[in-house]
């Protein structure tokens, strides 16, 4: 409005966001004349709002409305007339040498971790991690920001490898991380509403790197699921520049932000076609799909009608959602007469009075209970992992690290 339309403007933002918008203004090269009423202005009585308007700007200490009038009438300063955009310098590739103890402290105190212990990204470890792909370490993979408007930070294959080391990954996980990084999507954008995200992997890579799509797939009993999910969080912090109260404004935060519900789809036990095939990929392709939303609502049992009713009750993203269903549920739904996910989608959309394209299904779990979970996640993107895999195939350790496999019924006695 100021620059393009030449309209003198006062942006009004509550005082809680002073630092956030002042930074934004600096990033964009105009020192806009913000005025800050107290926070919040939503869901409070009108009498209190009038008090805000008649009262002071808590940031400047000046009467609020006269400050607005002044912001529209006081001549521009030289600094305002000729703003200088601050170009931020690049960080050196290496941090100054220090002891292991001090470096752990540095990473933690600088906010470069998720609060849990990390593996320090030494040159040797990063070089080993880079054996997980054929790509040039200095190839730019993407740019990311957890905010809508601030500067996006650029990252290379090597930077993704640094994050992989920190998260505790092995080179076999790197192609999945590069695919995730290539989407440029942070796991938690800076909305005060506290978003969360979900990672779901399809295709042969699930088994090659030992991901869990079966029993307890969403619980902390699988190495690959754990470190891949964590790595996306560390990318979002370090590439997305997430700094609480500065660029990151989740009011409550979200526990799913730690691991992003990282899992694989149980394609083998599903009665339906895999998610990535629905989206046009070949069954033999490996893909990763990223979802975004807020809520993971269990426990649910029952037929398609119950699924439609649950979706109808869901309010956070309208009537959009992704169902995570145990393979037993997919079999029951097939018995109900739904031959494909598409038929099920059409039925639920009609019953819930919504659009079919707003409904998605993932089959995951170990067939101990015919449960389904309704999330309000919507898919952001599905991307191929294959182009990040070395020509010689996934780089595995001689003896790959694996947690104990779930104990499964092998003799048929349990009825599975």
């Amino acid at each position: 409005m100021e620059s393009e339309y030449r309209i003198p403007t006062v942006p009004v933002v509550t005082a809680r966001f002073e630092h956030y918008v002042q930074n934004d203004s600096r990033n964009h090269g105009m020192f806009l004349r913000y005025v800050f009423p107290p926070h919040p202005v939503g869901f409070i009585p009108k009498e209190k709002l009038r008090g805000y308007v008649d009262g002071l700007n808590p940031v400047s200490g000046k009467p609020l409305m006269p400050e607005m009038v002044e912001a529209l009438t006081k001549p521009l300063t030289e600094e305002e007339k000729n703003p200088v955009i601050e170009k931020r310098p690049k960080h050196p590739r290496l941090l100054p040498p220090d002891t292991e103890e001090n470096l752990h402290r540095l990473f933690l105190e600088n906010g470069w971790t998720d609060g849990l212990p990390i593996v320090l990204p030494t040159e040797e470890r990063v070089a080993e991690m880079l054996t997980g792909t054929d790509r040039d370490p200095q190839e730019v993979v993407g740019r990311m920001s957890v905010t809508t408007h601030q500067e996006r930070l650029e990252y290379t294959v090597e930077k993704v490898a640094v994050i992989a080391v920190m998260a505790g990954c092995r080179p076999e996980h790197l192609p999945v991380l590069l695919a995730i990084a290539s989407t440029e999507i942070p796991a938690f954008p800076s909305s005060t509403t506290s978003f969360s995200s979900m990672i779901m992997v399809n295709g042969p890579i699930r088994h090659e790197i030992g991901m869990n799509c079966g029993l307890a797939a969403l619980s902390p009993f699988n190495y690959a699921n754990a470190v891949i999910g964590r790595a996306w969080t560390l990318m979002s912090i370090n590439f997305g520049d997430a700094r609480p109260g500065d660029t990151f404004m989740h009011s409550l935060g979200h526990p799913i932000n730690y691991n992003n519900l990282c899992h694989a789809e149980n394609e083998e036990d599903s009665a339906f076609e895999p998610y990535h095939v629905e989206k046009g990929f070949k069954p033999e392709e490996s893909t990763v799909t990223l979802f975004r939303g807020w809520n993971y609502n269990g426990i649910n049992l029952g037929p398609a009608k119950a699924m439609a009713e649950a979706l109808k009750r869901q309010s956070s993203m309208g009537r959009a959602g992704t169902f995570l269903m145990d393979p037993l549920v997919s079999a029951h739904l097939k018995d109900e007469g739904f031959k494909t996910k598409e038929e099920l989608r059409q039925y639920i959309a009609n019953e819930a009075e919504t659009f079919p394209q707003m409904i998605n299904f993932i089959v995951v779990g170990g067939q101990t209970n015919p449960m389904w979970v309704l999330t309000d996640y919507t898919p952001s993107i599905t991307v191929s992992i294959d182009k990040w895999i070395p020509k010689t195939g996934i780089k595995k350790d001689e003896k790959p690290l694996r947690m104990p496999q779930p104990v499964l019924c092998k003799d048929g006695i349990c009825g599975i």
Partner: protein
Amino acid sequence: MSKNLITVLDPRGQPSGIFGKVLDLSNPMAILDPEKQPTTTLESMTGQKMADRLDTLEGKTVYLVETGFAGAADFMKEVQGWFQRNMPSVKTVLRSKRGNMFTDDPELWQEIKENGDAAIVGVGG
């Protein structure tokens, strides 16, 4: 822990000179689509200038634009009430921005340019 000095890589992404930009109104749901997030560059932002200020608001038209955040519409009504009580010669026009709080509304900006003198836009937060 070992007291030997070790060298590690900096995990942070590098400044790119590429920034996000407000969404086009033609697709308000684009906020959910990572491939539809518009960007701008440091270079293209260079040379942006704030508009010249008015000598006075007396007798002028000020648009009060509510952004869609909770409480914004009620806040702007109170701002309008303040002008009516304290600066009655100022004509105020209350408007709601179309789309949602993340989208652009160039039609409204054009209307303000043609029919107004200044704008107060909010409330963010």
